[in-house]
């Protein structure tokens, strides 16, 4: 074997570990824009809530967008996802590409998601449960309950059934680091590991579970260490870096899809606000202001921008247009975001606001299925 082929092998190995190196310029810019989209969705909803136009609690994904954007980007349309309370943008960003109006795409429309947020009939669940508890069988998004980590066994069942039916889908489930303390986390991952099911658990380690710091939830230095207990792949990603998230998740997806069982990808990040919007002021009681300031420094939009400049994909005026990074919702204005994103969101909100509420009598419906018996 020549030295040359040896180095080519090494190169391939390197590529395998960093799939993002194969992303085109277009893809990279798409990711960058998707970060804005996720951010704007959140910023805008915070404003809408402050205006009193919304009920329910918003668990902000601000500062954690790279996790959603980076993990979703490489999925096949036929893969499943299971977002939870802090992952609202995932519902419409699954299988999403700017400018591609694919009628068969397997993600929700922004209109559907806004209808859910506004509690309108056009919500995929007709607003029967709140905020992040939507989902869609046809779009392959699992519906969560509030009970944390409770969707992991469901995800395992979904991919088991997929495999039985000849498919090769994986399922990404999202969970906070605190949620990994739940018994069902263990039961589900243990089961998935025994049966080598392609369930990838993304742990969004934002350092806090409501008012409890990660070290009171998890005894190991890294939450990914939990993987060791199951002998499964555990990876750690820089949750502020969309490319690193993409790389690690793709690595896990390929590992799991190839029949090697479940995996855990811990994405280290930092919660930008209180636990929910009701908690913003109280959060100061348990979380030092300095910590928040510190955390803000590595805004995923800024990290991505820097990388794109290095790659030469952003030049000239593009380098500094739309400076959304480092600003919380109050500090942000529409000037910080590309106009097409604002328009996208406006359309969704307008649709929702013009939609009717479900009729009161609907509340009696759908307790039991009464369809055609199989």
């Amino acid at each position: 074997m020549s030295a040359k082929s040896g180095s080519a092998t090494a190169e391939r190995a390197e590529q395998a570990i960093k799939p993002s190196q194969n992303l085109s310029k277009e893809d990279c810019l798409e990711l960058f824009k998707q970060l804005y989209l996720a951010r704007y969705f959140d910023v805008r909803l915070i404003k809408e809530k402050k205006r009193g136009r919304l009920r329910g609690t918003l668990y902000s994904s601000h500062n954690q967008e790279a996790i959603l954007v980076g993990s979703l980007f490489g999925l096949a349309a036929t893969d499943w996802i299971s977002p939870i309370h802090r992952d609202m943008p995932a519902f419409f960003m699954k299988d999403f590409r700017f400018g591609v109006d694919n009628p068969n795409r397997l993600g929700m429309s922004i209109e559907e998601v806004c209808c859910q947020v506004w509690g309108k009939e056009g919500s995929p669940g007709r607003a029967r449960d709140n905020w992040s508890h939507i989902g869609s069988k046809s779009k392959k998004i699992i519906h969560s309950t509030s009970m944390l980590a409770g969707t992991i066994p469901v995800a395992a069942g979904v991919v088991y059934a997929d495999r039985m039916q000849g498919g090769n889908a994986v399922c990404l489930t999202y969970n906070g680091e605190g949620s990994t303390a739940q018994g069902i986390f263990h039961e589900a991952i243990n089961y998935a590991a025994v049966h080598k099911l392609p369930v990838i658990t993304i742990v969004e380690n934002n350092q806090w579970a409501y008012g409890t710091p990660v070290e009171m939830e998890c005894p190991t230095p890294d939450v990914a260490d939990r993987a060791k207990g199951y002998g499964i792949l555990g990876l750690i990603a820089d949750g502020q870096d969309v490319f690193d998230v993409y790389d690690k998740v793709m690595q896990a997806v390929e590992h799991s899809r190839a029949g090697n069982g479940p995996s855990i990808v811990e994405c280290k990040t930092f919660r930008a606000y209180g636990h929910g919007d009701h908690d913003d002021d109280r959060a100061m009681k348990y979380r030092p202001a300095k910590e928040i300031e510190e955390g803000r420094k590595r805004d995923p939009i800024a990290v991505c921008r820097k990388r794109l400049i290095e790659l030469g994909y952003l030049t000239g005026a593009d380098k500094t247009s739309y400076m959304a990074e480092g600003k919380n919702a109050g500090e942000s204005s529409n000037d910080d975001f590309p106009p097409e994103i604002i328009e996208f969101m406006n359309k969704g909100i307008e649709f929702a606001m013009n939609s009717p509420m479900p009729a009161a009598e609907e509340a009696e419906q759908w307790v039991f299925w009464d369809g055609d018996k199989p």
Partner: protein
Amino acid sequence: MSATTVAPVAVKKNYLTALNEALAEEMARNPLMLCQGEDIGKLGGAFGVTEGLQATYGDHRVVDMPISEAAIIGSAVGMALNGMTVMAEMQFIDFISCGFDQIVNMMATYHYRTAGEVHIPVVVRGPAGAYGGGALYHSQMNEAWFCNSPGLKVVCPSTPYDAKGMLKAALRDGNPVIFYEIKELYRKREIEEELPTEDYIVPLGKAAIRREGKDITLVSYGQNVYHCLDAAAELENVGVSAEVIDLRSLVPLDEETVFNSIAKTSRVIVVNEAPMTCGFAGELVARISTKAFHLLDAPPSRVTRMDTPVPWVKPLELHVLPTVDKIVAEAMRIVKF
């Protein structure tokens, strides 16, 4: 083997065999059906309900699960979400408490939450009931928890015919069903019966009149049906004619059959072996009192387990459970009211 045609000997089958046949036939009928539970594969389950299924359908469709009730139920929900029908066995129904959240919050509500997009054809079944010395954790009838959790059907057959027909109906129902099997009936010789050779189901939500009578109605389900029948026989000796109704299904409930009977008898006792407070007997008494008050000539009554766990040793166990004697005594009190 002779070529001559001989009349087939009538084969009586027990409750356990009936269940086993139901599963085998539904597995054959529905290639997207799967069974999972602890030790259900090679062993065929603690009692043998799944005997032989793995040999026929393979270990991908008859799955030995880790001791993880919550994962057994939760993954069944996921499979259902993705097009399959699942039988999830609890080794004893008592252990359903370990998978409780996945049942009441994930499974029961899925259809409702999705405004009908998703339905969940999962049957959670397992051996239940006392009278066998199983003590606190191998004797429970905890059906009331699930009757109080909207979105679940809750049923409990008492005969081999019903066991088979209702399990098949449950597996085809499309809704999550909690299926209580009475383990003391599994191999009970006295109740063995011939089963139809052709496919049949017993629809969920229909009660059966097990004995006709005119003076008092005894309503029950599961094992207590036999206690009621024995009580009815004793009551006959003292000139009291008792009608015995086997509810079979608690959710949905066949109120009509119950009310029709009370229209005739004007007196009713509901018998079950669950703890009294917030048990299903109380629920039925409440339905009767609120909806059929005018039919009653005496207070409705219930004979249930005392509000205690099920203790182990026999005298203690029987002390807290409904017995034929207790039913007879209560019937005499009500009849004389």
